[in-house]
């Protein structure tokens, strides 16, 4: 707090060294500007008589409302450390509150994702590095055999898709009808949740890819298939039931990926340039469809 100006101090210490009654009334109404308000407050802390005089001007109903609002804010809480950190990064408070209702951002979900990734990546790493028998680096160019990485490459994008699906499927939103009947944009709510869930699942998937044997671009190569799958599921949900859309997207990944891994001799074919190009094309096409058909989410994304 800066020191009050002499002029302000003069107004505050009016007759008899006390704050004038009309100034106290203005202060109680919130009509006093910054410097003068500070002067009044500084005086009030030291003057019981002026504090007593001020109470006559205070709107008791407003005080009660403020008290109730403060109690409610205390009951709501600040969302914990993660919310505080994101708020510091400029994420609006209300968006963080909306995310609190996203199941795939809850600790239990994230721990499950990390657990599954740890199993499939751990197994691939153990075999790939020769810690357990299973065939170290049987593929060409020193890469591990496709069979070693296959479970991880299959599962990681599906886990990302599952997180995004949980963020937009009505079955995971108990207050679905309220969300549909509310004026808050359905598309915006959907995208905020989907992007957050995508990020939350992608981070551990990419981190797990770093510990695997194989080419250094493997973690980056997981991004496009994951993004494409999620965009495809969202775009498909504008045509069919959202659950069916998620299943279709998952199947469109799992079946060709399994086929490629089972039949081709090209190591890590699903993260080679032609597969990446196909994923990029799907991502762009899905984004266009999603933009064009975004109104479908306004009426309720169940329809």
């Amino acid at each position, binding site marked *: 707090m800066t020191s009050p100006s002499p002029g302000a101090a003069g107004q505050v210490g009016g007759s008899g060294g006390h704050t004038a009654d009309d100034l106290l009334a203005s202060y109680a109404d919130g009509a006093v500007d910054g410097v003068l308000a500070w002067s009044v407050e500084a005086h009030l802390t030291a003057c019981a008589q002026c504090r007593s005089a001020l109470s006559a001007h205070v709107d008791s109903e407003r005080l009660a*409302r403020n008290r*109730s*609002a*403060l*109690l*409610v*804010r205390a*009951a*709501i*809480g600040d969302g914990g450390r993660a919310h505080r950190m994101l708020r510091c990064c400029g994420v*609006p*408070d*209300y968006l963080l*509150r*909306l995310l*609190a*209702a996203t199941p795939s951002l*809850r600790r239990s979900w994230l721990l499950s994702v990390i657990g599954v990734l740890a199993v499939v990546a751990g197994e691939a790493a153990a075999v790939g590095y020769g810690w357990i028998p299973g065939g170290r680096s049987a593929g060409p160019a020193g890469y591990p055999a496709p069979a070693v990485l296959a479970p991880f490459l299959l599962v990681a994008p599906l886990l990302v898709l599952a997180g995004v699906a949980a963020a937009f499927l009505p079955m995971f*939103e*108990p*207050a*679905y*009808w*309220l*969300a*549909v*009947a*509310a*004026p*808050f*944009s359905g598309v915006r*709510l959907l995208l905020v949740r989907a992007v957050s869930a995508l990020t939350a699942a992608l981070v551990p998937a990419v981190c797990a890819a770093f510990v695997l044997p194989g080419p250094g671009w493997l973690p980056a190569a997981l991004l496009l298939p994951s993004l494409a799958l999620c965009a495809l599921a969202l775009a498909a949900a504008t045509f069919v039931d959202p659950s069916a859309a998620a299943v279709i997207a998952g199947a469109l990944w799992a079946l060709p990926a399994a086929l490629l891994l089972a039949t081709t001799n090209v190591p890590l074919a699903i993260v080679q340039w032609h597969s990446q190009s196909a994923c990029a094309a799907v991502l762009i096409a899905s984004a266009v469809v999603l933009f064009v058909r975004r*109104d479908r989410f*306004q*009426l*309720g994304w169940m*329809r």
Partner: protein
Amino acid sequence: MNEDTAAVRVDCVSRRYGATRALDEVGLTLERGITGLLGPNGAGKTTLLSILATVNEPDAGRVSVFGLDPRDGAERVEIRRRLGYLPQELGYHRHFTVAAFLDYVAILKEITDRHRRAEEVARVLAAIGLERYARKRIRALSGGMRQRLGIAQALLGNPDLLVLDEPTAGLDPEQRLRFRELLSDLPGDPVIVLSTHQADDIAAICPNVIVLLEGQVRFAGSPSGLAAAAGGQVWSADDRDHGAHLSWRGGDGRWRHVGDRPPADAELVAPTVEDGYLMLSHAAGVR
């Protein structure tokens, strides 16, 4: 009801679910004040209310809310800005506290300012008498308290149109009385439409009542008008008359009969809203 000044107008609205016709060319108007919707299970009440709440689309017909057309995207959002909706089966994020859930719904209602949200949540908590439970997790609430929480969320933002699907279900008698008081005290004279199975709720607080039977409006008028539908057809007697449409023994030990023929030694009594509803249901062949 005055057709020209109606706040909500429903014209020839139909809605099917597969082979089931939930609404069959329903037409009605709603004015400011409370309108009660009576009907048996499966009569189409929930479908009608969900269409008024813009979460469901009619297959045919037209709906206008405050002159706005919910088929238009921008106008639909405008209706939702003025809407408070309590669905029949409201789900909750059970890990939320009462205050956090209301805060969440307030954000969905576009109240994004943190302080204003807190004030609004505090206001509806006080209105519904849940202030003491603000910190309580929803999973720890009783069914009645959850229903009150559902009503509280509908009141957020002082809506102009309040659509309440069976709001008194699960409330104990005292809470039902408090609910009536709450609706009567709402500021701004909103349009309130509520469905219920409780005819006494209708008689107590609704100046207007609509009876929906098998997807069709069979009555629209005042509660006294509905009661009058059973005028001259409600009798009190010492013995049961098996020819009556419905008969039951009252608290005074006498049998109350609803039917078009008087039993022997019967005394004609004044009909209630419930009697009128029973007569309409019987006439429509609904059991």
